[in-house]
């Protein structure tokens, strides 16, 4: 029973990692940029939701929609304002740039909302469901269900819409896509918008579990580990990687001395990189000489 309980908590924690990792992978696949600020965008999304729900007092459904829109706009603005000039630059420069962005977003959030942790007024928080002795919080169910819905939505989007297919094309070859009349720059903007909206979803879903504060974006580092364990550049891989790390953390917490669980994600990552560097779902190939 205890094992099952841990599995469920790990599952919901893993979904959060997976959602953030999904944002990384989406941007990486489409633009070959590595967005280190994904966790901080999630934090910003949570704070926006906090402002709308607690300070403006809007109903939750409206808060959810408005937050997604605002954050999508933010993601787009970020791409237009800062990252567009970096198209074609070495990946390392973009990585550094997004690390810098993360610091700036954190400082700005600290300036606006202060550093003390806040709780979001959310109907998803508080309640529990009991199934044959298993105790599951509403927020955990919300995270798992929300992730599943989002994944399904993304799958349909990439599989069946013109825009989704255009995004796939741009991710495979920017120049060829451009020749075929795909507005590559606008597609990039939209990818950033979607990715920021996913991050905001993760922020809203995780807010009842861990309080909102400017440093909550550091979860992003673990999500990075998740993305790599799953195979960087694979969308299902991101979710699977997140689940693996989320569940592993819970079990390490139970069976190993305290503190190890905090670094278990990184140990797993290093082990993965040594054993199978391309991840569970391999997409990256190396040029052989």
């Amino acid at each position: 029973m205890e094992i099952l309980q841990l599995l469920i908590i790990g599952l919901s924690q893993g979904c959060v990692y997976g959602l953030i990792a999904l944002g990384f992978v989406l941007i990486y696949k489409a633009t070959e940029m590595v967005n280190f600020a994904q966790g901080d965008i999630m934090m910003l999304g949570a704070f926006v939701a906090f402002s709308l729900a607690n300070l403006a007092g809007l109903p939750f459904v409206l808060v959810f929609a408005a937050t997604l829109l605002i954050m999508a706009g933010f993601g787009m603005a970020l791409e237009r304002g800062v990252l567009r000039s970096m198209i074609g630059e070495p990946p390392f420069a973009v990585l550094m740039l997004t690390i810098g962005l993360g610091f700036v977003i954190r400082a700005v959030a600290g300036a606006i909302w202060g550093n003390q942790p806040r709780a979001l007024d959310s109907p998803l928080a508080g309640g529990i469901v009991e199934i044959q002795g298993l105790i599951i919080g509403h927020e955990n169910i919300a995270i798992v269900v929300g992730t599943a819905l989002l994944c399904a939505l993304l799958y349909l989007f990439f599989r069946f819409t013109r825009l989704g297919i255009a995004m796939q094309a741009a991710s495979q070859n920017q120049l060829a896509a451009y020749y075929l009349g795909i507005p590559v720059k606008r597609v990039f903007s939209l990818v950033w918008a979607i990715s920021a909206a996913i991050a905001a979803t993760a922020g809203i879903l995780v807010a009842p579990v861990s309080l909102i504060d400017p440093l909550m974006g550091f979860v992003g580092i673990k999500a990075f580990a998740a993305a790599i364990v799953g195979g960087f550049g694979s969308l299902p891989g991101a979710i699977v990687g997140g689940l693996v790390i989320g569940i592993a953390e819970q079990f390490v917490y139970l069976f190993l001395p305290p503190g190890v669980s905090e670094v278990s994600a990184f140990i797993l990552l290093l082990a993965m990189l040594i054993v199978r560097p391309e991840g569970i779902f391999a997409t990256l190939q190396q040029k052989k000489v």
Partner: protein
Amino acid sequence: MRFVLKTNYGQDVNLFLHGGQRFWYGLLLAVVLLAPLVLDTFYLGEFALVFIWAIAGTGLMLLVGYTGLVSLGHAAFLAIGAYAHTYFLTQGLPFVLSVPLATMFCAVVGYIVGLPALRMTGIYFAIATLAFERISAFVIEHWEAVTGGHFGIRVPDATVLGSNVDGPVGFYYVCLGVLAVSLLATMNLLRSPTGRAFIAVRDSEVSAQSMGINLARTKCTAFALSAAFTGLAGSLFAHKIGYLAPDAFTVQTSIQLLLMVVVGGLGSLQGIVYGAIFLGLLPQAIAFARDVLPQRIAEIPGLEPGIFGLILILFLVFEPLGIHGRWVKIRTWFDEFPLYRKATYKRQRSYLRTERVR
């Protein structure tokens, strides 16, 4: 424009190309040597810190600027160097023995960590180093017998040849000497086959491998050397802060080190020193700005990292070659006065994935 007519092979070996360089670097050396005569002890301490950053920067520049591998975890080597040095000192080893031992220890750790790294490129490597940094921080926090855990550990006073070097003047000279040796060693290394292999790997792994360079070994060597220099800086840093605790070495320290080499100018040794001066002066400048700015802004928590991030962004977007790159541009402008072409230093962009498989 200055052209150097080479009349014997010795001129190819000289570290300095012409008399002008020899004169200016000689003057710089004289100034830093005589500085303790005029400067206040506070400024000497600050300069010593700048030297320490520059030594660490040498290590990171070798890796990032010359081998093209980005490490997000170099604070780990700073920490390992500092703790190892302190441990050796408390075991009764003299300073002159303990520093090289700590450096060697870091090199060995770097080599071992670098071994799996040879299977990775680019972003994977960066994340792996970040993971290594977190794990090493965890070990430092929990290995209380050696590191003192959360409570930290006091760094014993250091003596060289019977005289205490923990005083500001002595410490200043020790740091200066170590920095000079590190820079000279790096200059020479970069002209050796090993150094040239580093640069070849940075520019194109595929062509480097085609030329018969053992990629794995070269990357491992670069990482070990880089770790050694950073560990050397760490052992001096221990004396600078006097009391080691885990929160002195965080992810932010790694990012600061990276900021230093980017701002200074990737791929140039002068850039290390510019970056170190920048990194050393910035906290002072921010502290000063806090007094001047209105209270509402000055009290923002996390203002300092925020400004660090902003500067990093501005440099990457507007001057990716860093301070040194800007200086080279200005010099070229004067050299070629009315004929300066803006496109001389234009950045090369690559839009195809195949172009980016290097």
